[in-house]
């Protein structure tokens, strides 16, 4: 049985939105690293303390009207590499 708690606490997430954002947005998005990709996609990568913080971040994205493309929890192994 998968343990719930493991997924509820601090974790690294990758979020992709449509449209290019520059690093200046980093403070706004709770210190996430902003990396523009091809096809006008921006990837935001960073750590959230818990699920509530993640949802808060998603609301910020929604409030800007940025189309959301992907939200992915980065596995611990990947994150530490």
């Amino acid at each position: 049985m998968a343990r719930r708690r493991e997924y509820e606490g601090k974790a690294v997430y990758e979020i992709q939105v449509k449209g290019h954002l520059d690093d200046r947005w980093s403070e706004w998005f709770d210190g996430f690293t902003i990396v523009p990709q091809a096809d006008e996609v921006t990837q935001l990568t960073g750590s959230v303390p818990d699920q509530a913080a993640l949802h808060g971040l998603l609301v910020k994205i929604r409030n800007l009207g940025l189309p959301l493309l992907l939200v992915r929890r980065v596995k611990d192994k990947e994150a530490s590499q």
Partner: protein
Amino acid sequence: MAMALLKTKLFIPPPPPRLVSRPRLVERLNEGLQLGRKLALISAPAGFGKTTLLSEWIGQVDRPVAWVSLDESDNDPTRFWSYVIAALQTVRPEFGLATQAALHATGTQRLAMTGLLTGTLNELAECPEPLALVLDDVHWVTEPQIHDALAFLVAHLPPGLQLILSTRADPPWALGRLRARGQLSELRIDDLRFSHAEAAAFLEQAVGVELAPETIATLDDRAEGWIAGLQMAALSMRGRDDIASFTAALSGTHRFILDYLVEEILDRQPTDAQTFLLQTSILERMTGPLCDAVTGRSDGQAMLSRLDRDNVFLVPLDDERRWYRYHQLFADLLRSRLSHDLPGHVPTLHRQASEWYEEHGLITEAVHHALRAGDPEQAARLVERDALSMVYRGELATLEGWLDALPEGVMYAHPWLCVARAWALVYMGQLDGVERLLHEAVGGSGLPADSTPEGLGSHGAITSPGGGQAVGTSHADTRRLRGHIAALRAYAAFLRWDGPGGTALAQEALAYLPRDDLTARGLVGMLLGMALYGSGDLAGAEQAFAKAVAAGRAAGATDIAVNALCELADLQVTRGQLRQAAATCQDALRMASSATGPGKRQLPIAGYAHGRLSTVLRERNDLPAAIHHAQACVALSKSWAQADAQILGHVFLARALAANGDDAGALDAIQEAQRIASEVSPRYGDFVAAQEARLQVAMGDIAAARRWQQASGLGADDELSRATPNYILLARVLLAEALSSSAGGARSAAGAGRGQRPGRGSGQVDRSLDQALTLTARLLDAAGAEGANGRAVEILSLRAVALHARGARDQALGALERALSLAQPEGYVRSFIDEGEPMRELLRQTASRGIAVDYVRTLLSALDAETSIPNLRPVAHPGLVEPLTERELKVLRLLAVGLPSKEIARTLVIAVGTVKQHLKHIYGKLEVHNRTEAANRAKDLDLI
């Protein structure tokens, strides 16, 4: 104690001066209205013109519109519904007065939100003309309690009301069901996106010059119909002569279009305006002086007027153009730049805003900014000032949200914050954690732990302080704090059914609470009264209730005052003061009616008063009035979804109907009480089970009453400290058992005239009678000791019948005489005539001895009336001699669709045996012999 509402949130924003009319979308909304769809949902991301569309739609609609602009602070049920009601009042000033009062009454948490809404809906359903309620920016609301209530509202919306929501996120309800039923009009992103023609018209208007078709095509291509994008593009182009190169640059960049454009717009503003925009972006609402406080400049009002004139994403919030806000999308863009460009300034800006709001008495906003400033100390100081009033006003969710935002240590350092949070928890029935908070409150205030006030004993006596004084808190404040801590512990004890503990704590609280803390004193007085009542100190309880009534009345806390009056009435009935009890109920009813005039309605709490009055009237044999008030209790508590009052109401109704000879109706009512109790708590279940046994024994179903006794575990030899209703009932069951088996049914006493079963051994009969006699003697002593004269009347009547059965005639008459002397001045009737034939005989003998002749004559004629008219109820259907009860009608309908008894039982949540009993009654009333005949006859009579 109403909360301060911001009128700006009810202001319907006017359509912007340059508007691209969108007749297609307006028509879609109108169509939904004509089709009678309950809900219109405008769901799209920011900047797609949702609010603008609504204001255009309102400009042409044929019905009044109530409007609420929601924001972050509305994520609190009390606030949310306060605004909704205030909005409806802009259309109908008399609307919702009762709901409003209920919303703000202390202890609101007892009232389910759906109950509040049912009351509101009933009121809305009575509205003569249609109206529309717009909730703008519903995405701010995430609190499940609000969403549950909104979904309930939509499901039960009266035909005249349409709900229109605008939101960036679909509400978490079962929208699919509404769609499938054709009850939902929807406008979504693809509907709202500007068409090419709309984009062209918009750009030309907004830029103010004619644009080349290729420019328009490029811009539209880049913005993809996103109105905010086009609007910002237009703003960047205004006054520019290099439109072509601007357009080329915009289409050439891959940047997020708004990010790019906001930079363009800012760059084109003078430096002072740029700084102003960034600094004020932290504000949710702006007015000149507030902007000045934040920027440290003095040009706030002038700057706002200029931005308004230049159409820089400013939304006016009133007609005078004093208050504004930025378009939310624009504000977010500005804030993101601020946090990057001037990150160190943000806390200072928020702190300055917080100070300005504090100076102007707007605490909610002051707290909001203090928290954003990262200054929990300041926030805690502000919250502490208002925390207790927020509890009293029922703004628990907001309070909880604020306290959650504070570091634990900061909250613990402020004793009043701990106390306020503890109240919030207790009101929500969550006792865990309360003691910890109180412990911290004691620690934070520097009070010595476990101190007890001196000189306790007389209620509310001011005593000398019990110990050390906190640093920085005044003597009076320390006493008040102690008072609240004790009050909270008393409340917790009450919820745990710890009577003695509750009594001591409530007395301690009253000793410390200041005279002017009326709400707390009222609440504690009520708790003390209930605890004393429970322990048999009736005089003490009466005093406590009377004080609670006075305090509640003076505090304007109607809930407390009416509740205490109802408890007082119950107590008076117990003490045999029927006349006073009736007057108390009338007093409670007067108090529980809101205001006067067209908005006059009864508050939910009035249900209890009706119920209590019904018991008094039943005892005096005014049965039509008793039934009427029990029904009023049921109806009122149903319309406010108050489970406990509904249970009581059905029980009172059952007793009134049974007295009126409607056994089937009485059983129906009891079953309904049982059904509701089973959904609420086993505590009510026990109460209802006893009430059912009471009915059963009166109807002669002694076996059933015996089963109750076995289940309840009560025994005739139990130690008794009080004459509680359940032991009186046990005596009644024992007596009925003895009577039903002896004398081969020649007697009919204690209602045991029907369904008696012969064949019991005489030993058993003797034992039951012995037990009844011993038990009534002991009960009588207990009732005498606590002054429960009302109970003594019933016990003496039972005892007289029991003694009579034993052949002890003189003793029987002696007991009856005692009962009569207690009962005569108060006008008791039912406690005598409910005992049936043996009582008739006893009364006759009493009269022949010249005792209380007139009174006895009244009782005898009431008893004669009872037996000569078998059925007092009116004939409800011309084809039926005896009308069907509501429950029987339900059974009949299910039977007619072909359900077997087992299924009917399951559907109605009753026993199969009960269904069969209903069927027997139905067959009798319809004069048929089987299911098919019953169904046919029912159809012929148009009963189903």
